[in-house]
Each structure stands twice: as structure tokens, then as C-alpha cells.
């Protein structure tokens, strides 16, 4: 909300400098976002009168003028074509400045000296739209004769400071000059001067002109009207226009300007109807009927529903209550008699209507916040007062006011002790009472109660009162302490520790953590080659997304990972090792009836000089860190349509699915514009939490030497390394310490359909040095097993 200081000062006598003012207002709760010192950039620009105009001898398009600027007569060369002798115009003198840091100095134009510049409205930093009389492209010709040499800032009223306040939604009363004036008065401990409202009426009786009926007082608690006769539509006076412009409202004509002016000043919107266009002498406020329509004064046809509130003349709709008036009954140049509406509407309903219609008017924005019905008559009278003052018409005696249930101020108890203890301060009751009084809360000291004016519905109890006290006392004066409550232990949970281990281990192996949006496009499933009937397609859809690309909650984390890999690949980063810890959202039932499952996933993605065994090694290290590697099994996985059917392993642990790793299907890689092999892994973190073992027990270091034997065997291609290792494990006996694969070979010297596999097997006993014989026996058992179960042929 923009408020010119001059306007504010009508109601509170602020005399400190602007910096002190805005700081104090911010600290008492009316946050100042910015302030603009009007005309600050304009200097030495005055009113001048054109005495003579001659052609420039050497330039067709230039004119040489003599201009009287009060103190002297100067020569100005100009290219303007809209001036004539005798015009009063703004003149930037030698050494002057204009908005945008422009400096004007005496200089020569095509050999002729020019001692200043005549200004257009743009050059003065003003909006052309605010000054419709300004020439489309030329010097601004003043409409009045000012004393020559008058500072142009006075002419345009540019001596004001406009302060922009950030008003919080609980303080609808502060969306007004008087609301902020009241706050300023309380902040600076100054008296607040409420506007003096007196209406000079002409004889008559408003109720002869109109009657008012409210069908639904819940949505329209109050509706009041006055009749203005002999209306003369014309421009508003300069002072009013200047204030409106400063507050950011464009002047239109006196009647529109008055309603806007009063809205800014008092905080409540008004509407003016052309009385003669009403079909009946009646205002009926009712809900719209289904299918009912109205053309609003912006020329749009609006389709209404039964939740919306209509103002009608008993027959046809004439306005959408609190949102916008109708086209048919709007005030025009021909209007003779006006019905002034001042009403109160239910804020929530107005908000809903405005939202449904997509119609955010100034009125709907104000009404949405919920206004005080007890201000209705003051608003009506203030507008009527201005009508008389501006000579815009004559006010017929009497007000028609429908106010079925008067809103009374509420009385609430206060507790000095509770307020003090909530804030951690020790103010006296007297000090608090001073603050309450400055906010117009009526204090009853005996009963320890406050009567709260109806414009402050936000005040309900001691917590609210504490805030009022604190902000007027000063948040900065409240001392800082540390809590003295019961101590608690700050500690990470088991799951949080697991997550830390995962992240640290991934980073230790060279992976970078990434973050992705958790909603995405429904098109990703096709891109990922996920089949039509896959459960992953059962997605939770956002009903009002930012666009299709952000419309579904992800059920898989691949798209985010692949998009990131693609970004890196296409920016020519040679390799990328990435991981993400993030959620997927799995609905138990669609449409959603209960909260979905949010599952944390570890997603690994990489490309570069890598192969399947790099990603396998990565997860193996991770499982080792988590103390679960001996429980983990890998099996060829061919059921994932987005993965390479021959290079993907499902990972399970205690027969429960943990996730998978493997190479991305080349078709999917192509869909993501990645022209290289991509390795992916997805692991369920809740399963890790279940399987991980963070307990460690020390095993004594061996005292006796180990014996190692290498064997190489020929096996059929289909035989898996896992099968060989199972046999080594089963048959190695107690003395088997470890085994490691050191060679797999196919090719020359090896029969077609076979491969050579070589292991180094290590034996050790913890209590003695092994004999040759013991080791031979164990090896024999292993070899027998391999030969009989896997048809392995030992190679010598």
C-alpha cells in the first residue's frame, strides 16, 4: 500500500525525518518496503513563458525560442513542434537535473546557443497516462498561468514522499490512510485525528428514492446507500489527482476519483450506480441463480453460480457484490443521479467469487481481507462530503441503511502477568494500558478487561495483546535469554545416521549428490520405456499444476537422474558420477483417499570410462560399510524394460527386494540424448535400514600364517561365478578364510562355449599353522564339488 506522507499528515502530525519515520514504523509492525521522495531527481526546473519562436537558420527541424523564466529571458533551441508563443512550459535551466540522472547545460545546437531545455511529461519522470492532456509527443503545455520561475515540483505537487507499506493479512484496517495514521500515532505517541466528516444535504428523503433488502446477511452484513442529484461529471481538482497518482491510482473523473480516494483513505471500496438506469427503486442483495449472467463494467460477460452474491435492482443484476459493478448501470458523462453504495461483504466469499471468476479487482482485494461493517456510514458520508466539496453534485438528505445484525465490539480479559511471562519482560500495568489506549482499546482496569474496536478482529486473547504490547514497547528492547526449560538431548535417529553413512560412502567413492524436482511430466513413462500397465504409472496427479511438465508426483527417480546425466553429457563433461537420496510417492489407492507412501530411494547414475562392475563395486562397498554385504545377493534381472536385459542385477537381502543395478537400455539412453553407456542403480533406503548392522565386534588379528592356492578351471559359459563361489564356501570347511576371483578368460585355447575361471583361495586356522595335508584335503573337497556339480575341468 502506497501512502503519500502529506495525506497521512492530515490525520497525525508526524514531524520527524523520513528515515526515522520509516524505521519506527517498520519496528512497530507496519513494515516499510520502500519510500520514494518525489521530485528528488528534479532540480532547477521552472515555469517559463515562450515569448518568441523563430526558425533555426541552419536546421529545418529546429526552432529558436526566447523564454521568460522569471529572473531572465533565455534562448532555447528545440525540436518540438507543438509550442506557440505565449505557452507556459516547464523549463530545465542551465545546470538543472532531471530524472534518470540527466543534467542540462548550456550548449550549442547547430551553431546557436541553447541555454536550457523545454520538458515533456516523460522528461519530468511522470506517467503520460496520468496526464491525458499532455501532448502525445511534445512539450508539456501547462494549463494554467503560473508565476514565471515557479519551481515545477510545486506545479506537479512533487514535494511529497510516498511510503510503501507491507500490510499483513491480519490487519485489513491498515490498508487505508487512517489505519496507518492510527498506527503512526500509536508508534510516536501522538494524537490520532479521525477525519471530520460533515455532509451538507439538500432537502429530500433518500428512502423515497430507494429501499434496500438483504436476502443473505451472512454474505452481506450491511448495505447502505445515498442519493446524489444534479451530478456534474468532470475532472477532479489537482490536489485530489496528485494524491491518487502518488498512491498509484489513475484519475478518471470526479465521481470515480471520489470513490477511489475514499477507498484509499478509509479502506473500504464503494460503488456508484447510475440511478436512472435502475429498473426499480430497490436494491435487492441476493445469491446469484445458477446460470445467471452479468456484463461487468470491464465489458466482460460473467457466468455466475449460486455461491456468488449479486446486487440487483429487484429484477436484473447490477453488480457482483464487492467484486465489480455492471456495465449497464455504470456512471457515464450523461449520468444525472447517482446511487452511492457503501456496503460490507463476507471476505471469504468475495475471495472465492473473485477466484472463480478470475477477477481480481481493487474492490475484491480489499473486501477479501474482511472489513469492519461499522465503518460503512463514515465511508458513505466521507464520499458525500467530497461530492459537495468538489461540486460534483448535491446530496439528498438521509441514508438508507440495511444492517440486520449489528457487530458489537467484543470485550476480552487481559492479564499483565501472562503478557509479561510470555514475552519475558516486566512491564507495569500502567505502561500496558497506555499502549492499549493508543490503539483505541477501551480499558476497564477494575474488571481487567479491554473492549476491542470492531476494526481489530485479530485481537482475541492474551497472546494477541502480548504482540500489541511488544511491538509498541519495541521488539528490540526485549532482552535475549536462553531457554531454562528441561534439557533434551540433540541426536540423530537411526534412519538419519543410515542416510549419513550412505551419503558419506557415496561421496568417498567419487559421487556427487544431486537434487531434482519431485514432480514431473506424465510423458516420462514413455521416455523411460515403462510399459502401459506398469504400476509405476499409477501416479498421484496435481489438480492445479504449473503445467503438464510438473503435474505428477514421481513414482520413480530415474527421470530426474537421467535428465541430470544428460545435462552433463551434453555439456561435454567427460564423466559424471551422481547420486540422489529422494522420495517417490506411491498411492495405495487412486483417487487418493489416504496419505500415500513416501519411500526414500538411493538413486545412482553414472557414465564415463566405466562398466557394470563399477556400479556393482560401488554398491558392494556401500553394503560393506552398512554391515550387510554377507546378506546381499545379486541375480540377473531381465524384467525391467528400461534396463539392458543382459546387464542388470536385482539385489535382494534375506529374500527381500532391495533394488537393482545395471546398464540403461540403449533406447532409453537415446531418449535422453545420452550417446554413451549409462549405469544406474536404485536402492530402497527403508530396506537398507532393515538390513544394516552398525554394531561392530573386534576379531583378533591372525597369529598363524595363511596358505593360498590358486586354481583355474574350465566351465560352461552358463555357469555363474556365484555358483562356483557357493561351492567354495560350502566345501572349504572351517579353515577357509577367503577366496577371490582373479581371472575370467574366453578365447584362444578355450573350447567354444566354455570359459576359464581362476580363483585364489586362502586358508588359515586361528590356533595353529596349517599343514600341507589339511590344505590339500580342503582343496580336494572343493575341486570334487566343482567337478561333480558344475562339470568343471581343472586346468593345470
Amino acid at each position, binding site marked *: 500500500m502506497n501512502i503519500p506522507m502529506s495525506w497521512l499528515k492530515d490525520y497525525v502530525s508526524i514531524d520527524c525525518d523520513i528515515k526515522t519515520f520509516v524505521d519506527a514504523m517498520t519496528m512497530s509492525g507496519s513494515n516499510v518496503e520502500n519510500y520514494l521522495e518525489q521530485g528528488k531527481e528534479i532540480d532547477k526546473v521552472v515555469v517559463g513563458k515562450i515569448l518568441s519562436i523563430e526558425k533555426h537558420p541552419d536546421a529545418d527541424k529546429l526552432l529558436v525560442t526566447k523564454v521568460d523564466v522569471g529572473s531572465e529571458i533565455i534562448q532555447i533551441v528545440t525540436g518540438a513542434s507543438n509550442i506557440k508563443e505565449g505557452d507556459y512550459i516547464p523549463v530545465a535551466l542551465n545546470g538543472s537535473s532531471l530524472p534518470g540522472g540527466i543534467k542540462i547545460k548550456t550548449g550549442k545546437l547547430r551553431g546557436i546557443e541553447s541555454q536550457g531545455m523545454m520538458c515533456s511529461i516523460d522528461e519530468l519522470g511522470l506517467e503520460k497516462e496520468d496526464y491525458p492532456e499532455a501532448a502525445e509527443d511534445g512539450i508539456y503545455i501547462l494549463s494554467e498561468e503560473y508565476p514565471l520561475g515557479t519551481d515545477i515540483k510545486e506545479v506537479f505537487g512533487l514535494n511529497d514522499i510516498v511510503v510503501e507499506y507491507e500490510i*499483513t493479512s491480519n490487519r485489513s484496517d491498515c490498508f487505508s490512510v487512517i489505519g496507518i495514521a492510527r498506527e503512526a500515532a500509536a508508534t510516536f505517541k501522538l494524537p490520532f485525528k479521525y477525519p471530520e466528516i460533515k455532509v451538507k444535504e439538500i432537502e429530500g428523503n433518500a428512502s423515497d428514492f430507494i429501499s434496500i433488502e438483504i436476502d443473505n446477511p451472512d454474505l452481506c452484513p450491511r448495505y447502505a446507500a445515498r442519493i446524489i442529484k444534479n451530478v456534474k461529471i468532470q475532472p477532479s481538482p489537482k490536489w485530489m489527482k496528485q494524491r491518487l497518482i502518488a498512491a498509484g491510482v489513475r484519475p478518471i473523473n470526479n465521481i470515480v476519483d471520489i470513490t477511489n480516494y475514499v477507498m484509499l483513505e478509509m479502506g473500504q471500496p464503494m460503488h456508484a450506480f447510475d440511478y436512472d438506469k435502475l429498473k426499480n427503486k430497490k436494491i435487492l442483495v441476493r445469491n446469484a441463480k445458477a446460470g445467471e449472467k452479468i456484463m461487468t463494467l470491464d465489458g466482460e460477460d460473467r457466468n455466475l453460480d449460486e455461491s456468488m452474491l449479486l446486487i440487483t435492482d429487484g429484477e436484473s443484476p447490477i453488480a457482483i457484490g464487492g467484486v465489480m459493478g455492471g456495465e449497464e448501470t455504470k456512471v457515464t458523462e450523461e449520468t444525472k443521479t447517482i446511487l452511492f453504495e457503501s456496503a460490507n461483504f463476507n471476505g471469504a466469499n468475495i475471495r472465492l467469487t473473485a477466484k472463480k471468476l478470475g477477477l481480481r479487482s481493487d474492490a475484491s482485494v480489499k473486501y477479501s481481507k474482511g472489513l469492519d461493517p461499522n465503518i460503512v456510514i463514515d465511508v458513505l458520508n466521507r464520499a458525500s462530503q467530497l461530492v459537495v466539496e468538489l461540486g460534483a453534485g448535491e446530496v439528498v438528505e438521509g441514508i438508507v441503511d440495511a444492517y440486520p445484525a449489528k457487530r458489537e465490539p467484543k470485550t476480552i480479559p487481559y492479564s499483565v502477568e501472562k503478557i509479561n511471562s510470555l514475552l519475558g519482560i516486566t512491564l507495569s500495568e500502567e505502561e500496558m494500558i497506555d499502549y492499549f489506549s493508543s490503539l483505541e482499546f477501551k480499558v476497564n482496569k477494575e474488571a481487567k478487561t479491554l473492549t476491542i474496536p470492531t476494526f481489530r478482529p485479530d485481537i482475541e486473547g492474551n*497472546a494477541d495483546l*502480548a504482540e500489541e504490547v511488544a511491538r509498541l514497547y519495541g521488539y528490540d528492547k526485549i532482552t535475549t*535469554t536462553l531457554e531454562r526449560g528441561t534439557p*533434551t538431548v540433540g*541426536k540423530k535417529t537411526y534412519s538419519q545416521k543410515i542416510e549419513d553413512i550412505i551419503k558419506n560412502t557415496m561421496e568417498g567413492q*567419487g559421487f556427487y549428490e*544431486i537434487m*531434482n524436482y519431485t514432480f514431473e511430466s506424465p510423458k516420462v513413462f514413455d521416455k523411460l520405456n515403462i510399459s502401459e500397465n506398469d504400476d509405476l504409472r499409477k501416479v498421484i496427479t496435481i489438480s492445479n499444476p504449473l503445467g503438464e511438465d510438473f503435474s505428477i508426483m514421481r513414482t520413480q527417480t530415474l527421470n530426474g537422474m537421467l535428465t541430470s546425466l544428460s545435462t552433463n553429457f551434453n555439456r561435454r563433461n567427460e564423466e559424471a558420477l551422481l547420486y540422489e537420496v529422494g522420495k517417490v510417492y506411491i498411492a495405495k489407492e487412486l483417487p487418493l483417499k489416504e496419505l500415500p507412501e513416501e519411500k526414500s530411494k538411493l538413486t545412482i547414475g553414472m557414465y564415463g570410462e566405466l562398466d557394470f562392475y563399477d556400479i556393482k563395486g560401488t554398491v558392494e562397498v556401500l553394503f560393506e560399510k552398512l554391515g550387510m554385504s554377507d546378506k546381499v545377493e545379486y541375480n540377473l534381472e531381465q524384467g525391467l524394460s528400461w534396463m539392458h536385459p543382459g546387464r542388470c542385477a536385482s539385489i535382494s537381502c534375506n529374500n527381500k527386494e532391495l533394488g537393482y543395478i545395471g546398464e540403461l537400455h540403449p533406447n532409453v539412453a537415446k531418449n535422453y540424448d545420452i550417446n554413451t553407456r549409462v549405469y544406474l542403480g536404485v536402492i530402497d533406503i527403508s530396506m537398507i535400514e532393515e538390513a544394516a548392522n552398525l554394531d561392530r565386534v573386534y576379531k583378533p588379528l591372525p597369529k598363524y600364517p595363511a596358505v593360498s592356492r590358486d586354481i583355474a578351471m574350465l566351465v560352461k559359459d552358463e555357469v555363474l561365478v556365484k555358483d562356483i563361489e557357493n561351492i567354495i564356501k560350502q566345501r572349504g570347511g572351517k579353515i577357509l578364510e577367503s577366496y577371490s576371483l582373479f581371472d575370467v578368460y574366453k578365447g584362444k585355447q578355450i573350447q567354444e562355449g566354455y570359459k576359464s575361471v581362476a580363483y585364489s583361495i586362502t586358508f588359515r586356522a586361528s590356533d595353529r599353522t596349517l599343514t600341507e595335508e589339511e590344505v590339500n584335503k580342503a582343496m580336494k573337497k572343493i575341486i570334487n564339488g566343482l567337478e561333480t556339480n558344475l562339470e568343471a575341468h581343472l586346468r593345470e
Partner: protein
Amino acid sequence: MKDKLQAIRNQAISLLNDVKELKALDEIRVEYLGKKGQLTQVLRGMKDLSAEERPIIGQLANEVRDEIEQKLEEVKNKLLEEEQEKKLKEEVIDVTMPGKKKKTGRRHPMNLVLEEITEIFLGMGYKIADGPEIETDYYNFEALNIPKDHPARDEQDTFYINQDFMLRTATSPIQVRVMEKQKPPVRIICPGKVYRSDAVDATHSPVFHQIEGLVVDKNITFSDLKGVLEVFAKELFGDKVNVRFRPHFFPFTEPSAEMDVSCVVCGGKGCNVCKGSGWTEILGCGMVHPNVLRMAGIDPEEYTGFAFGMGLERLAMSKYGIKDLRLFVENDIRFLKQF
């Protein structure tokens, strides 16, 4: 024979004195001490000596052998040392050449900031709480004192799934869920993703991260809130930072405030970044609204509390001098490597 032995010794020693390489040393060993060596041959001739002479010559022969062996050892050590010396000299390298780096990854910058904050609060006795991102109307709004027709519902442009479910607009629902389950004292922080329908640009994102905090106990005051958050700000931004609390409005706290810290760029003098005010807004906070406590089953007459919340992206951006929010989700390795 005596002379012969002397001659062998002198010859060997003098040869050894001139030896320049280890290989020659072995030859000399073989030549004199080997099975067919000169000294061995002399000793073989001892059987022809008389019984008197034999021990004398024997002793002399042993002495000669010892002497040669000793000399051999001496020369060998000397040569080894020289060789080592030479090798070390040859092995001079250019230490200014680049090192061989082991690959290591990094945390996402946002999580680095989150961890820093988390650590500060863990140290002050706070636990970390988590909760669902898809929330019910009750937890996201109602229980936070934002009833159906409250204007605050408009301010937080909410993504809805349907009438009953939405993407949480803040991490505050976690606070309510914790208060429902846990009796005071409660000290938690709740980090997480939150969602608001802002179109993507350099400073807006429909998904962002918040970290909120909640304390509920007996005798918790607004001055405690100020104290804790001041400690936090100084831990995060350094001792020199100034803080100020401005009145503000949130439906779920009363009194409410916003905390500003002195502008990290200009130190409070006023610059472009802080729009000349000298302050940067960091977080919102306040005393937990009695209605919120009541709805969570905590008696506001017995307990009070405070809550605060801040946006992680903003903190990370100001900490690292990042100007465009979109970098956080682009995940370009060259960006991620910098933190």
C-alpha cells in the same frame, strides 16, 4: 708359506681398494676366498706342513681370511652407499607437476548448509523430525490455525491433489505431528521439501526447502526465542553479525516476528543487495499460537513455545553468492564440484 699368505692378503686388499663396482667385488671374493680361490689353495697345502708350523700358519691364514672378508664387507657397504647416493640423485623429480588425485564426491551445496544448521541445533539439544510431503488439509492448514476461509490460504499458493490432500506448503505440519505424539519438552527442527505454485525463474521455484524449528516447554518466552535465534545467527554468519526482530504476522504464531541479519554484503551500511536498508530477512518466527497448541493436545495455560522457519535456498544462495536458483536442480558437475 707365510710369505705367500702375506702376498695374498696384500694383493687382495689392494685390489679391493681399487674396486669400483659390486660385480667386481664378487669376482675378488671368488678369486681369493672361493672353493678354488687362492687362499683355499694355500690352506689345502697345509697338510704338508709340520705339526709345529701348522697352527701358526693356520692362525695366520684365518687372520688373512678375516681381514679380506672384513675388507670385502667394508668396500661392499661403501659401494652400496655410493650406488644409493647416485640413485637418489638420479631420481630427482619435478614436484611442481600435478598430483594424482583420488576421486571424491561432494554433498549438494544446499545440504551442506542444511548440515551446518542441523549441527548448530543438535548442539543445542534439538532432534530432527520428518514428515510427509503430501499432506492433509488438517495438518497443512487447520491445525496451524488457518481455517477454511482464512486469507493466508491464498498467500501460500497451494498445489492440490484433491480437496483433502495437497503438497505441503511449509514443513510446519511436522511440528503438529510431533506435538501430537510427544509430550513437552519438545525441541525439534524439521527440514524438508515444500511446494508452492511459483513459476520457475532465477529466484523462484515451485519446490524448495525449508527448515523449521519448534520448542515447547514450561516458561518458554519471547526473549528465549530471541536468544536462541541470535545464537543461531551468530553461529551461521559469524560473531560480527547483528540481528533485529521486526513484528510480522503468521497465523500459527502470536506474537510473530521476522528476523533480519545485517547485510552480509555491506555489513549493514546499505547496498544494492539489501536495497539500502542494511538488513537481510532470514527467517520468520514467533510464539506458538495457543490455538495450535490446543489443537495438538497441549494445554496453552501450562506450556508455551516458539517456532521459526527459514528457506534453505535463500541461505545457500547468500552464503555461496549464487544468483540463480535453477543451478541447484541442474546438477552440472562443474557446479557441484565447487562446494
